[in-house]
């Protein structure tokens, strides 16, 4: 049965789009049929991170308004044939999205895919509430930093009250994904620890993505980090997270960079 998963956070810049692309690609690599949907109308970026920015013809709004068919707006990934993108509109604003229109598209996508990953815009306004509206599961992307944790808490409250599942008295299955984690700084007491964040948010952990230059490197070239450098620490962490989404029990650990002495001497500048 298809699963609708919203990637959300409240706060901007914590890694929602990066995580949507990486998790989507990792699930597709495991053989699942995946579509990643950009809900950030007016400020789309998932197309860019996926490297499909020059192939966008129709978008989510066009489909909502009946200007284009769903099949015309879906873009197939060039690397993985079972990974698709539904881009957001760049010219319209988020008011062009309607609850009913989004509901219709999600229902159509459920017939075609195993996973529908909704990349939420930042904030708690219409775009964010519609991105989570039909979700079965949620990944709450959180940085080990006070404002991000506070916003995650707020979003968790919304997932428990404003989604269709919540209104039916059911629960959206929630997972926290900690990104930009620096275990050294956490150990020195300079950064909130995993335990601190989980205790405060009282939500199970999906994965820990270490702070890494590979993430920027992957978005620079328009490739999900799991495809761009599968051996990198963030890629391995995202693959582990995707396996947990599939129901596998994977031991939780923080993958570390495999930096050799030479790399360290060179300051890891060779990108």
């Amino acid at each position: 049965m298809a699963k609708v998963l919203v990637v959300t956070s409240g706060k901007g810049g914590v890694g929602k789009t990066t995580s949507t692309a990486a998790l989507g690609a990792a699930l597709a690599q495991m053989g699942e049929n995946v579509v990643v949907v950009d809900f950030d109308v007016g400020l789309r970026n998932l197309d860019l991170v996926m490297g499909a920015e020059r192939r966008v013809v129709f978008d989510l709004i066009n489909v909502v308004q009946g200007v284009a068919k769903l099949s015309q707006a879906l873009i197939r990934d060039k690397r993985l044939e079972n990974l698709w993108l539904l881009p957001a509109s760049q010219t319209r604003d988020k008011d062009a999205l309607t609850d009913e229109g989004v509901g219709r598209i999600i229902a159509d996508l459920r017939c075609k895919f195993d996973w529908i990953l909704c990349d939420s815009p930042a904030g708690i306004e219409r775009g964010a509430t519609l991105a989570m509206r039909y979700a079965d599961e949620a990944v709450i992307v959180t940085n080990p930093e006070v404002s991000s944790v506070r916003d995650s808490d707020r979003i968790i409250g919304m997932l428990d009250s404003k989604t269709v599942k919540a209104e039916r008295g059911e629960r959206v299955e929630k997972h926290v994904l900690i990104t930009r984690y620096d275990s050294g700084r956490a150990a020195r007491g300079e950064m909130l620890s995993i335990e601190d964040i989980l205790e405060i948010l009282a939500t199970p952990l999906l994965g820990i993505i270490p702070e890494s230059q590979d993430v920027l490197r992957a978005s620079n070239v328009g490739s999900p980090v799991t495809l761009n450098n599968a051996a990198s620490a963030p890629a391995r962490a995202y693959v582990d997270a995707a396996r947990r989404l599939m129901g596998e029990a994977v031991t939780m650990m923080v993958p570390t960079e495999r930096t050799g002495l030479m790399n360290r001497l060179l300051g890891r500048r060779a990108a």
Partner: protein
Amino acid sequence: MMNLLRLLGGRTASAPVARERLQILLAHERGLRGQPDLLGLLRAEILDVVSRHVVLDPEKVVVRMDRGKHVSTLEVDIEVPNGFERSMAASG
């Protein structure tokens, strides 16, 4: 505890401060959830009750909540124009 960490680490371990601040803040914010506009509701009902007896300018009704560590105070400031007690005169 903080001083001890400072002595041992040579610099401030700020994560415990972050953790404590978050715990206090979120306990407070979660309490407000589900009743998103408690003050607005209080203000409307106070205005309603007082207006039955006194003619009021709705703009002159201010309801403020101040949360302290142990007690919170609810401050209701109603400005009543001079010389008007509409229904008191009628029922009087």
